[in-house]
């Protein structure tokens, strides 16, 4: 099993670089020679596509973990740039500060004004630090709660982009009540009479994710993951071997496919051919379409129906045996 994402992406990247170089060269050639070169290039492209089809067509759980965390994967702000218009970012929890690891604001998706929140990772080291690696502090959840409240009062649907390794677990977070903040996030979400749609675009990291993700509908990108614990953490606890993350990833069933089978998410959103990082715009369009579809579905319900529907959805999650003899519920 591949140990790193770069291991299988490297040949692909080289192939792609080679193809672009050839395309550049081709432009300088006279038409007849260019035509001759076309066949060669198309063969390379075929090779590339085949490689992608084979590799990305059957990624294992651990490989998906690597893709979900890939450093060139589109982040929340990329989706906002691609599908949101008239965006106004809103800041601050009115208590302590503004968390840069959770973005929040109002904008239009399609022709629909909505409140949007999402974890934000950084792409280079400086931005990563600025975004605290997408690990939100209490003020992030409290900012989101403030915006959820606004959405409810103005009848705006809510979209949550989920992409976090975990909530920030440091001293400051404990001091300001990270646990309370996450719980309060869910608590608030369950009160909303407007459609709420979450999209797991990368890592759905445990409490850090669900704190803004207890939505009416939960969608996952094809290669996103959603887990109660990072696989490395699970492996460290169970087998005292953080390196056994691949084994834990399989056991935890953290892929979109597993989550759908368990009935815990509503839809898998396809990524661009070869992964979201290979086609951020196309992937964003798929996400937009899926979100608008869910708005349409939920728009048919009254606020009370939306609340009841959401309650029922989560209330029914769980698998347990009720009687000593058997009888499955859940």
């Amino acid at each position, binding site marked *: 099993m591949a140990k790193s994402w770069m291991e299988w992406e490297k040949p692909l990247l080289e192939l792609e670089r080679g193809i672009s170089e050839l395309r550049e060269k081709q432009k300088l050639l006279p038409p007849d020679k260019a035509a001759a070169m076309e066949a060669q290039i198309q063969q390379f492209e075929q090779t590339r596509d085949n490689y992608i089809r084979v590799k990305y067509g059957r990624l294992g759980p651990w490989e998906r973990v690597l893709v979900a965390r890939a450093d060139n994967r589109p982040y929340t702000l990329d989706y906002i740039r691609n599908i949101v218009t008239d965006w106004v970012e809103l800041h601050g929890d009115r208590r302590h500060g503004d968390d840069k690891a959770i973005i929040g604001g109002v904008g239009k998706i399609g022709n629909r004004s909505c409140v949007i929140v999402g974890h934000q990772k950084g792409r280079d080291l400086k931005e990563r630090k600025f975004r605290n690696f997408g690990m939100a502090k209490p003020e992030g959840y409290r900012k989101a709660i403030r915006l959820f409240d606004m959405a409810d009062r103005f009848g705006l649907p809510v979209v949550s982009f989920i992409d976090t390794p975990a909530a920030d677990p440091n001293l400051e977070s404990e001091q300001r009540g990270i646990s309370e903040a996450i719980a309060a996030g*869910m608590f608030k979400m369950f009160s909303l009479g407007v459609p709420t749609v979450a999209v797991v675009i990368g890592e759905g990291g445990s409490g850090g994710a669900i704190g803004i993700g207890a939505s009416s509908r939960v969608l996952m990108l094809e290669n996103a993951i959603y887990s109660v614990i990072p696989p490395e953490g699970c492996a460290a606890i169970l087998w005292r071997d953080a390196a056994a993350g691949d084994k834990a990833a399989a056991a935890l069933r953290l892929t979109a496919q597993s989550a759908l089978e368990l009935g815990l998410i509503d839809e898998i959103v396809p990524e661009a051919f070869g992964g979201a990082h290979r086609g951020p715009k196309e992937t964003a369009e798929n996400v937009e379409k899926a979100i608008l579809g869910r708005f349409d579905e939920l728009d048919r319900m009254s606020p009370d129906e939306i609340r009841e529907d959401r309650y029922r959805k989560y209330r029914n999650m769980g698998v347990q045996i009720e009687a000593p003899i058997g009888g499955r519920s859940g």
Partner: protein
Amino acid sequence: MSNKPDAFLRCEGCKKVLFSKEFVKNLRVCPNCGHHYRLSADERIEITFDEGSFVELDADMKSEDPLQFPEYAEKLARGFASTGRNDSVVRGMAKLGGFPVSAAVADFRFMGGSMGSVAGEKITRTLETAIDERIPAVIFTATGGARMQEGLLSLMQMAKTSAACRKAYDAGVPYICVFTDPTMAGVLASYASLADVILAEPKALVGFAGARVAAQASGGQKLPDNFQTSEFAYEHGMIDAVVQRKDVRATLINLVTHFTGGKHG
């Protein structure tokens, strides 16, 4: 400290030798140093609710090992062996100073009191019973957090129990939570923190992340001596009061009296 019925035992906190009988009579709190020992669910029920008032519900509910997770079945069996229960949460109806309450009590000995589908369902039903009967919910936590052996199903128990808390809140039903050692992670970050009133026993471990993870994430910062204790949580406004075990019952009775005595609304 082992639970065997010797006449004497040595306190883990202060190393003093104690009479077992006195220790038990003192609610398993060291009379010398005040160390609060963990209680089984049955012990907790006995010292908290009106005598003989607790009636267990859903005792038969158990986990189905839905992910066929490595070694989970064995751990469930071991949990059963050490507690005689099917899972970590015991729930039922009880009385406090004559007032009926919907109650749940966690037993840490069952897989570290972790929350999988069964615990999540029982907590949810505890709150739903409170709503249906319009009586207070009283929950004692003792847990390491979510149960990873049920994967995403366990994470969703955080959402499910929080949804039930919201329903109780909207229904005007009082919910009191008592944190006992330990109250951590996925449970602290869901229904435990959503109570109207939160009491905690002294020096219980209360926190989001494991000590090692928290230390690592805090980089060079020195963690305070009382980091992730009841007292730390109290200092930072996260809980209403740190209450000695001997005073928990009386405090609960006072609260239940006030919260069910409203005339308006």
